[in-house]
């Protein structure tokens, strides 16, 4: 019998300084403005699906996809600006400096880990930002970038980009993200009999995307359908893992593929929802992932937001 585990984590604790009408400085531990899902959409009552988009992997304990290393929260400082362009146009900018990623621990270690609860492992900070254009109330499109040294000695770098879009209508919404990352990894060629071989640094690239659509059945005008919402989400991840990099990213590299989610939500309150979902994950390269895991799931979740 498998034993479960409970993990508690302080997700954010920060202070805002409202510098002027348009500028906000945030200091402390905060959700990084990298894409939309990690910064704004992942809380259960906001996330329309039970699970996460495939590019965000198994965060939350579901899914066998490796995901692109999630950039969720960190400790540092962020400067946010809003530029008003007429009645509906807005430009949003965020620029931040944070502790940054760290080298993963463990037997298969060497990969990138972004969990600020473990503290900083080197003297390098990570820098990033997001620039978005919104045409309120329906459209928003944003571009994010993040870069920082992750190895203990500060020699290896991790960088990531994200392009997100969001369309919200009266009864439906479509949103999606394209997410890519590059992690440098180092190794050494096998030398001739006890001698050292040539050292190398290679880039390990991983990228993916997801798209999500929702539709509220209240559009049909039947009062019993007013609280019902339908959700579909498709995610896809690929990497350049081909076995040539033996150790550092093998675990993650094996878990690429696609995921589709179908769900029906029943809203009990504006912030309370009962979700029923079915999800199927298809692993592209099962050989590399060591084990072949059938991953078709059915979810039932009650989510409540405060």
């Amino acid at each position, binding site marked *: 019998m498998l034993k479960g585990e409970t993990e508690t984590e302080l997700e954010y604790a920060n*202070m805002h300084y409202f510098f002027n009408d348009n500028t906000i400085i945030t200091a402390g531990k905060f959700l990084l403005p990298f894409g939309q899902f990690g910064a704004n959409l992942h809380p259960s009552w906001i996330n329309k699906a039970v699970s996460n988009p495939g590019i965000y992997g198994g965060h939350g304990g579901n899914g066998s996809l490796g995901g692109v290393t999630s950039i969720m929260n960190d400790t540092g400082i962020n400067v946010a600006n809003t530029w008003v362009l007429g009645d509906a146009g807005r430009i949003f900018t965020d620029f931040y400096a944070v502790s940054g990623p760290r080298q993963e621990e463990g037997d298969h270690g060497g990969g990138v880990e972004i969990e600020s609860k473990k503290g900083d492992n080197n003297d390098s900070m990570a820098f990033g930002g997001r620039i978005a254009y919104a045409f*309120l109330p329906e459209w928003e499109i944003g571009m994010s970038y993040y870069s920082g040294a992750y190895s203990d000695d500060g020699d290896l770098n991790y960088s990531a980009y994200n392009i997100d879009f969001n369309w919200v209508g009266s009864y439906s919404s479509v949103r999606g993200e394209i997410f890519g990352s590059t992690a440098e990894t180092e190794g050494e060629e096998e030398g001739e009999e006890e001698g050292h071989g040539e050292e190398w640094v290679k880039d390990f690239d991983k990228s993916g995307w997801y798209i999500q659509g929702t539709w509220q059945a209240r559009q049909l005008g039947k009062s019993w359908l007013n609280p019902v919402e339908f959700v579909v989400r498709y995610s896809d991840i690929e990497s350049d893992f081909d076995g040539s990099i033996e150790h550092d990213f093998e675990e993650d590299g094996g878990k690429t593929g696609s995921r589709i989610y179908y769900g029906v939500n029943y809203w009990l309150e504006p912030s309370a929802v009962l979700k029923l979902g079915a999800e199927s994950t298809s692993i592209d390269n099962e050989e590399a992932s060591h084990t072949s895991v059938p991953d078709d799931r059915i979810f039932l979740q009650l989510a409540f937001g405060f």
Partner: protein
Amino acid sequence: MKSIKFVFTIIVLTTSAFSIKAQHVNDPSLVAKGAKVYSENCARCHNARPAEEYSKKEWSVVIPHMRAKAHMTGKEALAVEAFLASTLTADVRHAEEYTKPNAPKKSGAELVAQFGCQGCHQIKGEGGKLGPNLDGVVANKGEAFLLKKLIDPKFNNAASAMPKYPMNKDDVKAIIGFLKE
């Protein structure tokens, strides 16, 4: 790294002490603007939350946090706060005009403007899209439906973001009359 974090923390703590406290402004145009901002921003990420979910004091804590999350300007956040405060029954019914038994009746148009209905609904071709279009709503749904909806917005949809407005029967009749025009 640690020293940088410490210095930033001190700067933010110090300067926050001199920040200006948001004011509650009882200005109809601010309320209408707040309804529009509320309609256009909350649903970008999540269902809009009805005003009655929190007290006025609680909203004054929620709004600055949401201002940061939604990238609202300070003026927009102030307008949203004014809109939410205007719809909170407990706050408004203590206003002088609601305590006088012979308070002057307002027209439907005045009430629609006062409550910021067009922040979320299209009326006579103008307004937001968070809620249904109200042009022709009396003909389509009937007066009885509107009467119930205005008194108890959640009667037909538990997830409705429509606030429970502090209005009496005369107000409801005036609004329905305006929507019929």
